[in-house]
C-alpha cells in the first residue's frame, strides 16, 4: 500500500535523523566538559527527551513492521482461517490500547502539562508527552491496515518471535 510506505519512510527518516543527532549531542557533551571545560547545561535534557520521541515513534514503526516480541507458538499451530481471526483479535487489542492509553490518556496529559516547563530548556512538558498521542494515532493506523489485510486479503501478519527482532544486533540476546 502506498500510504503505508509513505508513513514508514517518514517515521524512518525522522527517527534516524534524531538518533544521529543524539550521538553527536552525547559526544558534544563530553567535549564541552573535558575540552572546553564548560559543561553543556542543555544536552542532558535534549538527549533524554529525544530518546522518548525516538522510542515512541520507533515503537509505532515497529508495530507496522511486526517487530515487537511475541510468543507465536499458538498461531503456528492454528489452521489458516483461525490464525486470521486471531491476528484480527490481537490487532484489535493493540488498537484498543493505543486508543485508550496513548491517544486518550496521552491527550489528557498533554493538556495538563502544557503549562508545565522542563527544568533546563524551559520547554512545555506537553511537547514531550505529545509523543504519546502522535504515535498512538500511528499505531491505530497500522493496526487498521493489518486488520484490513487479514480480513480482505487473507494475509496473516503476526508479531515476531525472537529471531526477526533480535537478528544481527542488539542487547536482546
Amino acid at each position, binding site marked *: 500500500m502506498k500510504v503505508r510506505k509513505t508513513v514508514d519512510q517518514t517515521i524512518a527518516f525522522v527517527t534516524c535523523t534524531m538518533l544521529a543527532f543524539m550521538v553527536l549531542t552525547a559526544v558534544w557533551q563530553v567535549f564541552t566538559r573535558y575540552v572546553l571545560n564548560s559543561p553543556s547545561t542543555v544536552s*542532558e535534557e535534549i538527549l533524554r527527551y529525544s530518546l522518548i520521541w525516538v522510542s515512541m515513534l520507533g515503537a509505532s514503526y515497529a508495530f507496522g513492521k511486526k517487530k515487537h516480541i511475541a510468543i507465536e507458538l499458538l498461531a503456528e499451530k492454528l489452521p489458516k482461517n483461525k490464525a486470521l481471526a486471531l491476528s484480527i483479535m490481537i490487532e484489535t487489542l493493540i488498537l484498543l490500547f493505543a486508543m485508550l492509553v496513548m491517544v486518550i490518556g496521552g491527550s489528557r496529559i498533554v493538556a*495538563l502539562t502544557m503549562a508545565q516547563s522542563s527544568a533546563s530548556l524551559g520547554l512545555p512538558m506537553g511537547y514531550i508527552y505529545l509523543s504519546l498521542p502522535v504515535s498512538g494515532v500511528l499505531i491505530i493506523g497500522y493496526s487498521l491496515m493489518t486488520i484490513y489485510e487479514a480480513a480482505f486479503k487473507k494475509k496473516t501478519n503476526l508479531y515476531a518471535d525472537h529471531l526477526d527482532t533480535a537478528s544481527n544486533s542488539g542487547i536482546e540476546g
Partner: protein
Amino acid sequence: GCGSKASGSGVITMRLAHNQSETHPVHKSLAEFARLTEEKTGGEVKIQLYPNGQLGSEREVIELTQTGAVDVAKVSASALESFSEVYSLFSLPYLFDDRDHYYKVMNSSIVDGIYESTKDIGFRGVTFYDGGSRNFYTKKQVIMHPDDLKGMKIRVQPSATAIKMIELMGGSPTPMSFGEVYTALQQGVIDGSENNETALTDNNHGEVAKEYSYSEHAMVPDILIMNQAIWEELSEEHKKAISAAAKESSAFHKIVWEKSIAKAIKDSKENGVTFSNPDKEPFQKAVEPLHKEFAKKQSTAEYYKRIREASEGE
C-alpha cells in the same frame, strides 16, 4: 475525590506519596501528620503513606496529585517550580538571610498566597517541612570565597536558576541527576556538589567529598500538597483538623530535622569531613543580578518584595 475512598461508615482514606525512605526524618513527620489527622477527625480521615518514591518521581507524583490518583504528596519546592513559577523563588540564592528569617516567612501568611497559586491546576499547598540549607561540598579544595569555585565542575539540580547561580559565582555548573552524583564525585567527573548535610551520610557523599562549607546559599522547603477537588469536598471541621495536624507536624519536623542534622554532622566528622564557615557576603554579592531578575519578574515580584521586607524588621 476520585482517589479517596469513602466507605459506608464515612471514613475517608487518603493516599500520601513521598520519595524518601522510611528512616528519613520527613517520613517520621508525615507519619505524625497522618496520626494527628486521624486523631483530630476522630478516625474519620485516614492517611496511608507510600514512601520510597514507589508511586513515582516528584514530578510524576505532582501530576498524579493534579488528577487525584494521589490525594496528598510531599515534594520539594524546587520540583514545583515547573508547575507554578512562583515556587522558583525558593531556588533564588540568599532569598533568606538566615534560618530565623526562613521560619518567620514560612510560618507567616505570605506563603498562603503561594500555596493557593496552584488551585487552578488542581492542587494546593498545605504546609512546609524544613529541608535544611544547601551548602557546597567538594572533594578536596574548600570553598571559602566565590573565587574558589573558578574552574570547578559543580553538580547542580537541572534548573535554570541553579545553573545561573554557579555561573555567577564563577564555577562550571554541571546538571546531573542526584543518583549519579556519588559515582561522578568519586571518579572526578565533577569536583563538588551542593546540598544539605544528610547527603553526606544518607547518600554517602561524605565518603568521597571531604570539605563541607556553610555557604547557606539556599533553603528549599519541602511542601505538602493536596488535590484541590478533594480539599474542596472536605467538611469545614475536617479542613480545620487537617490544617491543624499539618501545622503541628511541621513543628514536630523542626525538632526531628535538627536532630538528624546534628547526627549527620557528627557521623561525617568521624568519617573525616571538615566543616568550614565562609563569609557569606561575597557569595551574596555575586548573585545580585539574580535578585534583580526575581524582583522584576511578574510571577515573583510581589512575593520577592514581601519576603525580603520580612527580614528587614529585625
